[in-house]
């Protein structure tokens, strides 16, 4: 079976909660240019409206701790 190669661009958010736990949120096909202000505005919007909570015990959202854009080329080899 031939290798399967895919190319994806993904924006990865790291949500940090007040209990110190972190969770990730991914967005496919991010825009080529995303400003720091756009992320800050999103962070403020989430905080102000309490829209995100931790899945373990409902911990309060702290902040968007990190945002990483990944451009990935993946080759999947079926070893079976």
């Amino acid at each position: 079976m031939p290798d399967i190669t895919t190319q994806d661009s993904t924006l990865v958010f790291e949500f940090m909660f007040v209990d110190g736990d972190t969770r990730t949120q991914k967005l496919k096909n991010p825009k080529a240019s995303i400003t720091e202000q756009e992320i800050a505005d999103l962070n403020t919007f989430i905080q102000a409206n309490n829209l995100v909570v931790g899945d373990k015990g409902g911990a309060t959202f702290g902040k968007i701790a990190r945002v990483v854009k990944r451009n990935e080329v993946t080759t999947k080899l079926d070893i079976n």
Partner: protein
Amino acid sequence: MSTSVSIKGKTAGGDGVTTTINYVNPTATDEQLQSLATAFNNLTTNITSDITKITKESLTNSGKLDRNMTLTPSTISFTAVPTITGGAGTSVTIAGSGFSTSDIRVSRNLTLTTAYLYADWYAEEDHCVIEFVRSESDEKITGEIVIEVPATGNYKSGSVTLTVGE
């Protein structure tokens, strides 16, 4: 318990794409969910066609494997969380339960040093992806383990050994 918002849309090329925003407060109103989904979608090039609310009893967990997290719905857990520090030829074994070795596919020519494992569960695509990320720069390294398991079924313990490539 938290809920999710699913954004259905299309790429510029016309392909269907679904984005799920997780860890959403279940008390959020539909209007707030709409605004949240729109805010996230505005960071993408996707064209939104539909925003729907999904309520999940137990959300998937994602995060660093060094937290020894259990991923749902197939309850995959990992007992060994190695830190890879060697160069070419170094091997590391990832052991756990909830999947069998035959479910695992790996990409070849893993090239990495000093990395941590990062796992995420793609609920809508029904598989778990373990990625290797450089701890210093968060840059994704060319290597991936894909564990594909169905949403339900009986699972066995499994493991996969990875060898650092050139």
